């Protein structure tokens, strides 16, 4: 069947502003949106730029705005949309466009870095594994599904109004280490994000949870951090 794709285009070498270009693609209902983009690039317009790699929702390269919603192009099929085979494809919002559907994710990863996204534990490890019970791990398990696709941070209304807000993805990573029993920097971590640009920037708008292609209950995870901080505040006073 014929599908119409209206795609955001911007080439910094020739364009002063963005434009939209229309393509017609013969697609099956089971084709991924990424397959359709590939067909356009391979058969009609090799200049179209977008990122992709694993093509099954694990590498996190191809988060795009598809019909006004942030989605992974490789995780959505043509049949998933009730828009009469018409598609509008745009780059992730919030980030600067490099070319067409490719955005500059450097600010995203800089923020990620700011939460010290690694296990901190200065004690010499035991000869074998550190013990950890499954329940502890189950608690932060949702955060392990994160593929750093930036869908949540790009969609977050706070991210868009406060450029210094660290954003849901980075806070989710902080959550992962705060609740990992093997990490020894819990108090420092909590202190580092106890601010309006940190965890209190989150106003529980649920957009992150809504768009997460891995189904992570991000807002709930962030609420757990807030709970711990509230409890601490109470205990301190």
């Amino acid at each position: 069947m014929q599908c119409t794709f209206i795609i955001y285009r911007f080439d910094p070498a020739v364009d002063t502003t963005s434009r939209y270009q229309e393509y017609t693609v013969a697609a099956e209902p089971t084709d991924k949106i990424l397959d359709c983009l590939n067909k356009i690039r391979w058969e009609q317009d090799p200049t179209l730029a977008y990122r992709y790699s694993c093509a099954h929702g694990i590498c996190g390269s191809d988060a795009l705005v598809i019909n006004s919603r942030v989605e992974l192009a490789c995780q959505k099929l043509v049949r998933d949309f009730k828009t009469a085979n018409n598609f509008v494809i745009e780059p992730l919002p919030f980030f600067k466009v490099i070319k067409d559907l490719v955005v500059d994710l450097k600010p995203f990863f800089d923020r990620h870095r700011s939460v010290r996204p690694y296990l901190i534990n200065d004690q010499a490890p035991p000869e074998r594994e550190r013990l950890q019970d499954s329940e502890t791990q189950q608690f932060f398990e949702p955060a392990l599904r994160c593929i750093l696709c930036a869908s949540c941070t790009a969609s977050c209304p706070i991210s868009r109004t406060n450029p210094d807000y660290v954003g849901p993805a980075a806070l989710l990573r902080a959550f992962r280490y705060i609740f990992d029993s093997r990490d020894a920097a819990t108090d420092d971590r909590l202190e580092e994000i106890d601010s309006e640009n940190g965890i209190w920037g989150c106003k529980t708008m649920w957009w992150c949870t809504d768009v997460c292609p891995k189904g992570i209950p991000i807002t709930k995870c962030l609420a757990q951090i807030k709970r711990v901080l509230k409890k601490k505040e109470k205990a301190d006073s």
Partner: protein
Amino acid sequence: MEHRYDAVIIGAGLAGMRAAIEIGREADVAVLSKVFATRSHSGAAQGGIGAALANEEDDNWEWHMFDTVKGSDYLGDQDAIETMAKDAPRTIYELEHMGVPFNRTPEGRIAQRAFGGHTSNFGKAPVKRACFAADRTGRVILDTLWEQCLQRGIKFFDEFHVLSLIVDKGRCCGVVAYELETGALHTFYSKAVLMASGGAGKIFKTTSNAFASTGDGMALAYRAGAPLEDMEFVQFHPTGIYKLGILISEAARGEGGILRNSKGERFMERYAPVIKDLAPRDMIARCILEEVRAGRGIGGKDYVHLDLTHLGEAVINSKLAEINGFARTYAGVDALKAPIPVQPTCHYMMGGIACDADGRVILDDHGTVFEGLFAAGECACVSVHGANRLGCNSLLDTLVFGRRSGRQIRRCVQTVELPPASPEYAAKAASRISDLMNSKGTESLVPIMGQMQAIMMDNVSVFRTGAGLGEALEKIRELQQRCRNIRLHDRGRCFNRNLLDALELEHMLDLAEVIAMGALHREESRGAHFREDFPARNDERFLSHTLVRFTGGTPQIFEKPVTITRFQPKERKY
């Protein structure tokens, strides 16, 4: 632009980043990757990483070694396999200490599960040896190593595509790379270069591999004079989602999943009575296609069913959630309620750049070292996987030999001076790019790529014949000719995927040729290489590694012996 580092690593998957961590302690290291580090294909590994921790059942490294040797159909080098099996438990503990969130036993130890070809007591029964983090083991290890690199301040050059190696008087002195965002050329001078660039599944039509798996590192090393070893051994994973090739992890069978034909029969009982659905991948891939040939594919088509419906919600949701997501999204099937349609999919290259257990690239059968060049991970052939890799051994391979290569490079950079600048390499690369961009050729790259993938799938996949391989080789060489005459349609400098496609296609065609040559040369059947015209293994003639070297403008085949220490070749039955 010019850069100088003690060591340059090509590829930011598990092997590359593990090596970077090892080198970064004492030397300057840069990691170049054509995709952003956390997009690397190591992240797609699902099921687990093998190590005889004996957390769940009695186990030891010797059994692991034996299984790997037998799984390799006796083609793996046993000294290297011993090194890997012995180092496996330490590797797992190290990962755990870095923060990898492995699933746990009720006692809080690392949980383990069964996997294909892994047994206790030298083949007596399946054993739980695979350490795992649900069914996203590769992804969480990739994230953890990347974060460890961030902590250590390792320098990454993301979305940099390497164009060529700088080789001066037989020594590798760096690389020339193309920055995708700007189209700028960068020359990296270094004392050592590590290839850790992964596999090349995209040569075949149906594959579990990412679009980035185009074998660039193997092809670059090959063009620079390094031999490629055992390239004819290409693993087809038995359970890719029908038509799409997306991987359904062996963990599904490790947790009790069963393969069934159109009659609902558990056909693996007939082929491997002892370990059934946990037989190694080469055998199961062939068995599935045998069933299809006998008319027992589902609905007469070329696939079978992977049945997980009896496993229950708890197991599927806690240990196989990701793959059930794939089944739902891509096959429209909920694994809790219905079987998943599966067929073999190109998954892994057992072969690669010939190297030793410290990652040093080896030039010939006397062990002459290619100075300054190292390899680790899927692009390398140590060789620990021989003719067929066992599940769970690839992640292990990347980490054990990534670390060892890193250690060797750390030693090496202390005694070597940084090479002098040699701008002619960048000039050569620049003229190659401009020739490509301005080519008035008449060919388009997409049909060439499609034809390569089709002929490799039809003639060089699970079942092979001399006639089919000969035809494939001829066709590939014709495609190589046509590839020299392609015309690009994007001549811009920013994010020019069209150019990247052309460079990748050249690499894939080189490797396709080497794979077909090796397969034609090896007139026997061993592991993943099955010749219908030579259906038996022939140890007298072919218990040896195949090597292909690019000399004098043409590929040449030679052989080298297999290292056998503890386990003499025996008939391989499960």
